[in-house]
C-alpha cells in the first residue's frame, strides 16, 4: 500500500509493481486505475485519507488474497488531483486468471465502500465535500 501526495505516476507504479513480481510465477495481473473525469466544471478532486484504518483494511485484503494464492497492491493520492490525472490504482497478482478477475472486482468495490477516504470537488478555488457520491461505511450510525 502506498499513498502519494498529488497525482499518481501510473507508469512508474505499474513498472515497479510488475518488476517486483517478475519472478513470482504469477500468471495473471489485473489492475484498476481511477482517473479524474472533467465534469461539473471541477478543476480537481481532493482526498483526505485516514491511514491507520486504511492500512488495516488493506491488511485484511492482503490476507484474503494470500489465502487464494495471490497478492493485492494499492496506491492512492492524498490532496489535489487535477482532471485527467489518476488518483487510484489497485491490482491483483494471482497464479490463474479467475482468482484475479474475481478479486479485483470485490477489492475495488469494497475499497469504494469502506476505505477511509473522503473526496472533495475543487472548483473556483473551493474544496467541497462530495457528499452525494459518498457512502456510509459498514456499521455507520452506531452512535445515533
Amino acid at each position: 500500500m502506498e499513498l502519494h501526495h498529488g497525482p499518481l505516476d501510473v507508469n512508474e507504479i505499474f513498472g515497479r509493481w510488475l518488476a517486483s513480481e517478475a519472478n513470482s510465477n504469477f500468471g495473471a495481473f489485473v489492475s484498476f486505475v481511477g482517473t479524474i473525469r472533467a465534469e461539473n466544471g471541477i478543476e480537481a478532486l481532493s482526498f483526505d485519507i485516514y491511514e491507520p484504518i486504511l492500512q488495516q483494511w488493506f491488511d485484511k485484503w492482503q490476507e484474503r488474497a494470500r489465502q487464494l494464492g495471490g497478492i493485492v497492491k494499492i496506491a492512492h493520492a492524498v490532496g489535489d488531483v487535477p482532471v485527467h490525472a489518476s488518483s487510484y490504482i489497485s491490482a491483483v497478482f494471482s497464479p490463474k486468471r479467475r482468482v484475479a478477475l474475481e478479486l479485483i472486482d470485490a477489492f475495488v468495490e469494497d475499497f469504494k465502500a469502506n476505505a477511509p477516504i473522503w473526496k472533495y470537488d475543487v472548483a473556483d478555488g473551493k474544496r467541497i465535500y462530495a457528499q452525494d457520491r459518498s457512502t456510509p461505511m459498514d456499521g455507520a450510525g452506531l452512535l445515533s
Partner: protein
Amino acid sequence: MVKVEFLGPIGRAPMEIEAATLKEVADILKTDDALLGWLPKCAVALNDTMVNDLQTALKEGDKISILPPVCGG
C-alpha cells in the same frame, strides 16, 4: 478521559470527554446539534480499529474516531 476525533469533512476539533462506554460517548455527542446530522451516517473506530458494539468499554486515553461517509478511488 477519552479523545474523540472527527475525520474528513466533519471539520470539528478533537474533544476530550469522560465516558466509560461508547454508549456514553453517543449520549454526549447527541447533545451537540452540529453533530446530529452526521452521527447516523458515521462509522466508529476505537484506537484505529472499527467497532460495532455500543457496549464497548473504554479506558483512560482511548481514541475514538468518527468516520463520515467515504468515497475513495
